[in-house]
């Protein structure tokens, strides 16, 4: 599958072929501009491939109704992208509400989701995003992504904008959550530590191509310059005992 943009010589995604297994957490790792976000947007048809196809649950994305497909796939982005004029409950219940669930069922689902991401519904449901900390906003973002109980969850650097302490708390919690929920997750990051912690499989992208892939155990042993470059980012600070 290839995705290119008119007026650019090199395609953003170049003759890429891969599959995501059901219930795995696949981490797309790569530097900025490596094509990982583009790849994510090709999955829920925010973009359509220039050649080749993207198949979701046996059907090519261009054969899906784009709106149906997107409501069927959870999406979580950096900075959460919460609707500032909605309450936390309205944000979390958005997709069920778009799909015209019954209000009582939405309320029940919203409470359940807030508890899943570690927020007390009594305290948080009626707040506005502006009244939350960065970590709490990101928790709401995850809850919103899970809104209509999608079997697939796409996550675009969801913890990227958080301070390092909050980030590692959320990573650990999310790792446990992902195992418990059994969703198929495609997770984009440029942070190798995050990839090693969360992934069942890591796919490394460079210039729109896959250059390495493997389980976290295998990944660091792969002999490729880009893998080594990422591995170097794990090195401890010289002179400070790890």
């Amino acid at each position, binding site marked *: 599958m290839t995705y290119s943009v008119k007026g650019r010589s090199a395609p953003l995604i170049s003759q890429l072929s891969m599959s995501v297994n059901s219930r795995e957490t696949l981490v797309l790792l790569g530097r900025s501009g490596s094509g990982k976000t583009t790849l994510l947007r090709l999955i*829920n048809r*925010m973009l359509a491939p220039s050649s080749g196809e993207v198949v979701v649950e046996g059907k090519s994305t261009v054969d899906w109704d784009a709106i149906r497909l*997107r409501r069927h796939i959870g*999406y979580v982005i950096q*900075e959460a992208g919460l*609707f500032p004029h909605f309450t936390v409950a309205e944000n979390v219940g*958005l997709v069920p509400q*778009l799909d015209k669930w019954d209000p009582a069922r939405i309320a029940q689902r919203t409470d359940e989701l807030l508890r899943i991401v570690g927020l007390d519904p009594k305290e948080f449901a009626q707040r506005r995003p502006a009244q939350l900390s960065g970590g709490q906003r990101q928790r709401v973002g995850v809850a919103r992504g899970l809104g209509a109980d999608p079997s697939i969850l796409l996550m675009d650097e969801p913890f990227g904008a958080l301070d390092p302490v909050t980030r590692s708390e959320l990573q650990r919690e999310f790792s446990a959550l992902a195992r418990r929920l059994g969703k198929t997750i495609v997770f984009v990051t440029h942070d190798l530590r995050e990839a090693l912690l969360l992934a069942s499989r890591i796919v490394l992208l460079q210039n729109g191509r896959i250059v390495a892939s493997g389980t976290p155990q295998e990944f660091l042993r792969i002999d490729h310059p880009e893998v080594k470059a990422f591995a170097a980012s794990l090195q401890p600070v010289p002179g400070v005992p790890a």
Partner: protein
Amino acid sequence: MTPWTFFVTHRSEIWSATIDHVGLVLIAMSIAIVIAVPLGMFIVQRPALRTFSLGVASVLQTIPSLALFGFLIPIPFIGGIGPRTAIVALVLYALLPILRNTYVGLTSIDPAVLEAAEAMGMTNTQILTRVRLPLALGIILAGIRTATVITIGVATIAAAIGAGGLGTFIFRGVAMVSDAVILAGAVPAALLAILADLFLALVEHRLRAQ
């Protein structure tokens, strides 16, 4: 004659001129809003039309108001002497602030919010009505507020083409070289502008707080 005695002796006449004035402003603003807000929504996705319509609205605003009223008189259907011509001129003046603020309001929304809306499976109509418009409302309202204050002021000149309103006293006062008569038109017009500004500021504040 002091301004106060003129005011007291002519209060019913001043009152009815004020009503006429408010009428001109309300009609002109309603038409301007009905044109400029949808047009502002429409030009978000159309760069060529955007440049054109914002350009035309800016040019209209630079025409001196008295000249604009004069230009309109000979035009068939919309021209002539009277309130109709005045309303057309007032609408043309009010377009720019509303159009520009609608466009700016709709396009200055956090891209992450719009990305999330699209990724959640909202249709374009839902994104417009449930995300873009509610978030742009405060800025659109600020444009309406600016336009209203301008319109209340410019509407005093409408009296020059026989449209009535508080400008009647101002023109009469200038002809009579009487400050008292000028003030009988100018003070209520200024008060109207201040009241409209305060009222719309309050509405805007309420909306933003939500």
